[in-house]
C-alpha cells in the first residue's frame, strides 16, 4: 500500500517535471538574443552583487582589490599610450592614393568602435573593426596588416580611445543569416575544445575572479569593451584576434586563423551580450 503511494507521487512528480520542461525546450530551440543578453548580464550582476554594470568592462581589476589599486596607479601612465599615439598618427597620414582611413568609415572613424562588429546584409557576414580596417587598406592599394598586434592594435586602440564611454550598440538585423551568425558565435563560446577540454565559458562565465595560476580571470561580460589591450605578459599590445587565438592555444587547442568566420561570429555574440556597457579600450592587463 505504502509503496503504491510512493509510486503514485513519483509519477506525479515526473509528470510535473515533464510539463515544466516543455516550454523551456521550445525556448531553447528558437534563438532569442534579447533574452540571452538579459540573462547573461543578470548572471554576472547576481554573481558579483557589489559591482555596477559598467565595472565589468575593467575585467580582473573589478574582481580583485589589490589589482584594482595597482591598476589605478598604472592608469596614470598607461602602457598603451604609445600605441594610441601611433594609431592617431597612422590615422591622419594619407595612403599613397591620397585617401585615408577616415574615408572608409562613418563619422571619419571617430567614436564608432561601439558599433563593431556589425552584420553586413549584402555579404551575409559579420564585419569586425579589424576586418574593416584591412579591407580599407586593400581597397586603397595598401598591403593588409597582421591582425594580432602592432599596427592593427595601434589603429584599433586609437579608434577605441575616441569611443570611450560610448555603450556597445550591436544590432542583429532582421535577417536569418544574422541570427545564424549570432547562434554560431554562441555555440563556439560554449563548446569545449582543446586537450584541457575547456570552453570559453569554463573560464569566463564559470570562474571569473578566480585565479588561473597567477592571473585573475576576467568576466565574459564586458571582456571585449577593453580591447585592444596592453598585456604585460606579451609586453605589448594585442587585438581581439590575438586574445582569441592565444586563449585557444592556452587550453591546448588549435587556434583558428585570425578573423575566421567562427571568430567573427564569436566576437558578434560576445559584443552583443555586452550591449549597453561602455567602451573602455584600450586597456591594460597583467
Amino acid at each position, binding site marked *: 500500500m505504502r509503496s503504491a503511494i510512493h509510486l503514485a507521487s513519483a509519477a506525479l512528480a515526473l509528470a510535473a517535471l515533464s510539463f515544466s520542461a516543455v516550454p523551456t525546450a521550445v525556448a531553447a530551440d528558437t534563438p532569442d538574443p534579447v533574452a540571452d543578453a538579459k540573462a547573461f548580464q543578470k548572471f554576472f550582476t547576481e554573481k558579483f552583487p557589489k559591482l555596477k554594470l559598467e565595472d565589468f568592462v575593467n575585467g580582473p581589476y573589478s574582481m580583485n582589490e589589490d589589482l584594482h589599486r595597482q591598476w589605478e596607479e598604472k592608469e*596614470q*601612465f598607461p*602602457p598603451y*599610450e*604609445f600605441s594610441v*599615439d601611433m594609431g592617431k598618427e597612422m590615422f591622419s597620414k594619407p595612403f599613397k592614393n591620397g585617401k585615408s582611413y577616415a574615408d572608409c568609415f562613418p563619422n571619419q572613424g571617430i567614436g564608432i568602435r561601439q558599433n563593431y562588429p556589425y552584420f553586413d546584409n549584402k555579404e551575409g557576414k559579420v564585419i569586425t573593426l579589424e576586418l574593416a580596417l584591412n579591407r580599407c587598406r586593400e581597397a586603397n592599394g595598401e598591403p593588409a596588416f597582421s591582425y594580432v598586434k602592432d599596427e592593427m592594435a595601434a589603429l584599433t586602440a586609437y579608434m577605441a580611445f575616441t569611443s570611450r564611454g560610448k555603450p556597445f550598440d550591436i544590432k542583429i538585423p532582421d535577417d536569418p543569416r544574422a541570427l545564424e551568425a549570432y547562434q554560431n558565435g554562441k555555440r563556439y563560446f560554449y563548446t569545449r575544445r582543446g586537450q584541457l577540454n575547456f570552453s570559453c565559458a569554463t573560464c569566463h562565465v564559470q570562474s571569473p575572479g578566480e585565479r588561473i595560476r597567477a592571473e585573475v580571470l576576467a568576466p565574459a561580460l564586458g571582456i571585449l569593451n577593453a580591447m585592444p589591450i596592453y598585456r604585460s605578459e606579451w*609586453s*605589448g599590445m594585442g587585438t581581439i584576434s590575438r586574445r582569441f587565438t592565444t586563449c585557444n592555444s592556452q587550453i591546448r587547442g588549435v587556434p583558428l586563423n585570425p578573423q575566421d568566420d567562427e571568430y567573427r561570429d564569436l566576437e558578434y555574440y560576445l559584443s552583443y551580450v555586452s550591449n549597453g556597457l561602455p567602451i573602455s579600450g584600450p586597456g591594460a592587463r597583467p
Partner: protein
Amino acid sequence: MASTIRVRATLSGETTEVQALIQHPMDSGFVKDAKGEIIPPHFIQQLTFEYDGKSVFVADWGGGVSKDPYVKFSFKGGKKGDDLKISWVDNKGATDTTTAKIQ
C-alpha cells in the same frame, strides 16, 4: 617623432614626486626571435633626472629591466614651474632628452 619619454612631476609639500614612462625595446640579448636567431642586446644603460643643474636620480640599467620601463621616485626640493630634465643613453649610443615642468 614624438618623444620616447613621458614625465609627470608634481610638488606636494617639500618633495617632488616624479613618474616617467620610457619607450624602449630593452632587449636583453638572451632572447631568440621566431626564426631562432638571437635578438641583439639593446637596452638603456643610463637614465638621468636633473633638477637645477644637479642629478636627482641616476639609474644604471641593464638587460634585466622590462620593455617600456616605468620609473617613480621622489626628491626633496623642487619648485612649481621649474624644469626637470630627463635623458637616457642606450648601449647603441642612442639617446633622448626631454624637459618637464614641475606642477
